[in-house]
């Protein structure tokens, strides 16, 4: 256990240094904030344009998508944090052979590397939410977080992040076998969650098969409960029949399942890569 903790701590520190030491701290902070805030601005202007063209405001939908998008920052950064570890170590720094043969858990090492990205994304999420509350209230972004709901919020947040890490490692195991360009994977896979997890619009907008996919993904329940806690109103998301604790139970069970799955798939990817001699391959085209 002590080795796991030491690996996690060192990997997290390494991840932080690799992410941030290319520039001055203040520039890194701006860099970490500009991307997600620009992402939020895309949605703001999409809303402004359709409101302006049709002349009818829809503040509840806007608040719904704004909060969902703010928390989606965790999804992008956590998934990218896990996807890119194998390929950056293998192709970019070409250090994977040394890390891989060291007496540590490579799984825990990836968790540690991803953790530094989660820490940075916490600030981006907070700033995006604060921006919405203070500057977009007139557009309909209103949030509330009462003291009695705080434990539920933090428990769901912890479960959400944990399931994200598990999903990230499950999919990241595929990069053992892929040529470089995990950037494409990191860009593409969150798209699945963007569409099917009710991040930006209620699940009920999707066709029935799409709703079924969404209901099978744990993140759907994380976004649902987060919005129930933060927004003063509820839209019809198709999950109204479940109370908060039931939603939390879904999230907990799926987190455990995905954690087990991540270990299995990771070991499989590792095994196949070793058998094919791809652990330290480089693809330069």
């Amino acid at each position, binding site marked *: 256990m002590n080795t796991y903790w030491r690996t996690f701590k060192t990997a997290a520190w390494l991840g932080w240094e690799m992410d941030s030491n290319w520039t001055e701290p203040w520039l890194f902070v701006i860099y970490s904030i500009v991307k*997600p805030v*620009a992402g939020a601005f*895309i949605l703001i*202007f*999409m809303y402004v344009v359709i409101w*302006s063209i049709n002349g009818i405001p829809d503040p509840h939908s806007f608040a719904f998508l704004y909060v969902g998008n703010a928390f989606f920052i965790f999804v992008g950064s956590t998934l990218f944090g896990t996807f890119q570890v194998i390929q950056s170590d293998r192709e970019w720094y070409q250090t994977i052979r040394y890390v891989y043969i060291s007496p540590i858990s490579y799984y825990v090492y990836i968790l540690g590397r991803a953790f530094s990205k989660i820490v940075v994304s916490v600030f981006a999420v907070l700033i995006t939410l604060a921006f919405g509350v203070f500057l977009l209230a007139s557009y309909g972004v209103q949030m509330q977080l009462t003291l009695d709901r705080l434990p539920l919020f933090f428990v769901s947040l912890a479960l959400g992040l944990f399931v994200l890490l598990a999903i990230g490692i499950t999919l990241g195991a595929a990069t053992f076998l892929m040529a470089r360009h995990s950037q494409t994977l990191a860009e593409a896979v969150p798209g699945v969650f963007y569409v099917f997890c009710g991040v930006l619009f209620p699940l009920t907008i999707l066709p029935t098969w799409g709703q079924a996919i969404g209901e099978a993904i744990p993140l759907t329940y994380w976004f649902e409960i987060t919005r129930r806690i933060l927004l003063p109103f509820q839209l019809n998301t198709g999950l109204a029949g479940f109370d908060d604790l039931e939603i939390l139970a879904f999230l907990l069970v799926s987190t455990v399942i995905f954690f087990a799955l991540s270990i299995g798939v990771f070991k499989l990817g590792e095994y196949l890569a070793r058998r094919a001699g791809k652990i330290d391959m*480089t693809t*330069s085209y």
Partner: protein
Amino acid sequence: MTAAVARRSDLRFRIGLNLRSIVGRAYPRVIGANREPSWIFFEAVLPLLSIAAYVYIYRAIALNQVAANPVDAPRILANMNALVASVVLGGAMVAFWLNVLWSMASQLYWEKEIGNLQLYMMAPMNRMALLGGMAVGGMFMTSVRAVSTLVAGVVVFGVVFQVANPLMLLAVFFVTLIALYGLGMFFASLYLLWGREAWNLSALMEEPIFFSSGFYFPLGGLYQSGGWGSVVAVLGSIIPAGLGLDALRQLTLGETAFGGKFWVLSAPVELEILVVLAVGFLILARYALAYLETLAKREGKLTSRHQ
């Protein structure tokens, strides 16, 4: 003058050499795409989902607007279709922009990191031919994703394009691509200078450029917002995708789409600006490359890695 020197200075030989270089550098990208079937899936299929998310945002809000004002439903739905088409066109352009960032701008830095750059520098062809080959190969690779986005837009989302002037449309499209890849060639040299910041700069030029160049909404909306919004839109228009998309939307949706009030300029004027941008970026790329090569040789950093 020896026969070999005379041959190297012969114009016909140099043109042939550089054309072969373009083909040679484009070749691994074209063939590489075929050798990695997973790329087709990741490049062509999965990105459609992000586009679908933006499509559903417009649909969700438009359906609520219809519920609030059923009498106006035909107009609201027509506008929604135009916005969905805007997203589909933007999604196709995203593919090219990402390719410019990750496979053009970052490429020379990447080549330096893996040790190919010194080989390129020793080879007798013009460096612009090398970048040109990368661009041609990149365009081919990316076209798969762009075409699949357009097909999905038409088949899955029911987007209807009305092309009244196909020649103008082709001209805008190709000039936009040349300008975009010219910018990528220019960035390639700068990234070589900036070193490790290059990767982060590419990452930084995704969402902010998607926003400031109006990839998912008509750029005119940003121009008309006034204040800082207009400033951001002007800056975003320096990226050729911004005006290129605006012109493509006018040419495929009709000038009357969105009530005709969200266009930046007319399509012919935008084409003229794009031509200027294309020529300008190619010239900048040529000089930046020569400058960087000289600088790197002088400072002995051409082959130093991880800096």
